[in-house]
């Protein structure tokens, strides 16, 4: 069962598909020789993914018309309804800040938790227990974003406002970003809730990649460590993590690609406020959640639409960059429980 991990891997619930189980991808057997005409016709089909990818980039690049790239694009102000279309500036800065805060912190939390889970699954838990727990954590990946969103907005937000945030403010108020006046805490939606939800959404991917990276460490290397009188933890820290380092970083890159692209759930729980967030309790927007919520109002303002398309292009390019990095890093790692991850990069 050997599938390299790739950015879009969505662990489905379960120890899954054994799409993988079958033998290591058969030793590259000589491709079937097709008649040359058919071969020639075939290459567009083989390249369908590449063509689709190029099409998406091209359409967005054309739609943006490139005219807003430049200083004003990075200006700090977003004019909601441009009063002077020709001279309006559409700044990405505040949204980029929102993306950086939510994706950055969520990724740090998710990486830590995923690493702990991956170590527990590969070193400490008995295989059967591990399989059941893996099925359950992979379940998180199958849950639609909007469902995370409505749960966050309706169930968690009031709880965050009444309990989590006041307590956090009392306990960590001295930390910059965690204090502020009592009025800093609003209805519960905001950065804190957004980070929490995003963390949960990123975890299945980072866990799957980290788990398989650790699992791909050859057994005899691990045993060599044990045979030298190292405790299981010492083997993890000094051998396993070191050997699997590339794959673990790959998980972080792929996780970042996933985190910055999330739009729907964050649009529901982030408080949708264009502002420099005064604290972790304040509302914000990410680039993705902003373009998700604004497209309908842009219908009447072509300039606005172009700016939004450029935002889309920005996150697309960043995502591609991080996924390429991640793919490179995990190219040696093979995952078994991540279905759909067929390609051998």
């Amino acid at each position, binding site marked *: 069962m050997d599938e390299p991990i790739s950015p879009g891997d969505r662990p489905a619930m379960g120890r899954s598909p054994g799409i993988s189980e079958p033998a290591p991808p*058969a030793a590259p057997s000589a491709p079937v020789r097709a008649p040359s005409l058919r071969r020639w016709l075939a290459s567009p089909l083989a390249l369908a993914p590449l063509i689709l990818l190029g099409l998406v980039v091209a359409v967005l690049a054309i739609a943006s018309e490139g005219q807003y790239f430049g200083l004003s694009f990075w200006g700090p102000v977003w004019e909601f309804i441009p009063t002077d279309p020709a001279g309006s500036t559409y700044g990405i800065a505040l949204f980029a800040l929102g993306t950086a805060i939510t994706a950055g912190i969520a990724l740090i939390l998710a990486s830590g938790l995923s690493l702990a889970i991956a170590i527990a699954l590969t070193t400490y838990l008995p295989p059967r227990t591990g399989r059941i727990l893996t099925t359950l954590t992979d379940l998180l990946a199958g*849950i639609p974003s909007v*469902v995370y969103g409505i749960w966050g907005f309706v169930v968690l937000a009031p709880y965050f406002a009444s309990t989590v945030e006041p307590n956090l403010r009392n306990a960590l108020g001295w930390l910059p970003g965690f204090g502020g006046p009592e009025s800093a805490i609003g209805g519960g939606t905001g950065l804190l809730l957004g980070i929490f939800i995003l963390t949960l959404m990123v975890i299945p991917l980072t866990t799957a990649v980290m788990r398989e990276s650790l699992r791909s460490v050859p057994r005899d290397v691990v045993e060599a460590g044990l045979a030298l009188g190292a405790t299981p933890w010492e083997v993890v820290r000094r051998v396993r993590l070191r050997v699997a380092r590339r794959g673990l970083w790959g998980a972080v890159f792929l996780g970042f690609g996933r985190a910055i692209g999330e739009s*729907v759930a964050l649009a529901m729980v982030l408080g949708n406020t264009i502002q420099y967030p005064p604290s972790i309790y304040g509302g914000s927007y990410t680039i993705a959640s902003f373009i998700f919520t604004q497209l309908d109002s842009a219908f009447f303002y072509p300039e606005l639409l172009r700016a939004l398309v450029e935002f889309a292009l920005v996150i697309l390019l960043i995502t591609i960059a991080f996924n390429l990095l991640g793919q490179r890093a995990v190219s040696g790692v093979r995952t078994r429980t991540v279905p759909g991850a*067929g390609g051998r990069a």
Partner: protein
Amino acid sequence: MSLPSLPSAPLGDLRGSAARWRRRHLLDRAMRWGLPLALLVVLFPLFDMIYWIAVRALPTFTWATLTTDQVGLGGGLYAMIVGSFTLLALATGFAAAVGIAAGMYTAEYAPPSIARWARVAGNLLAGIPAIVLGYFGYYALVLYTHWGYTTLAGGITLGVFMVPFVYRTADLAFANVPSEQREAALAMGARPGQYLVRVALPIALPAILSGVFLAMAIGLGETAPLLYTAGWSSTPVAGLFQPTSFLTGAIWNFYDYPSTEGSFQALAFQAAFLLLILVIGLNVVVQAVAERYRRRTRGMMA
């Protein structure tokens, strides 16, 4: 692995200090019991979410929820269900056609260099943020074609989103067909096309199907590619070139209505509940199919 041991137990002729051994031992124990707690940290919210969605949805969830149209502030999810499945059918058709064909050619025909690029592109395509694809669909299929919001645009956009998931399983499934099968078929004089259709496809099919189901489970839960392509309509889908509503859209449109005011929010929770069941169900199917496939190929390899 073993019962707790005391540092002073037999075999006590230690090098290094006993205190140090004790620290090493305790650290290992701490990790053994501490690290799995991270699983609880992750699983508790999962159960909390499922619990609350069920609690909010079930009291008002009846058969009528599935069979009636949305009326005013209330009614049922009929239009959204029909819309979701129409969109999913279109998208699955698109994704399966492109994904399976591309996977087959990548695994069987493509020269290695092209295959490599195709696989990298497939992985990147799977990583494109859903909302970016939504913008792509909006610009290419809503504005450029002058169709406006249509079911077809939604279906195609969702299909593009699902392609890489089908593609990658198809590629792997064909690549995993044992080479003996290929050699045997070709040795018996089968033409490559015959080999693909009569030998490789039947062997690879269960794996491909599990990829298709997985893509469906993912597609069913997406909102961002549809919102600005399929539009919205409170009546059941009337045609490919008419807009349509869909389940995820019901959640997005109704989630922030006050729960006291009519049943808009209840409708959102019912849609969420239904989605959870469908998505979990599809994933179970994915696993069952994959499991069968695994057994079959294993038998074949043996």
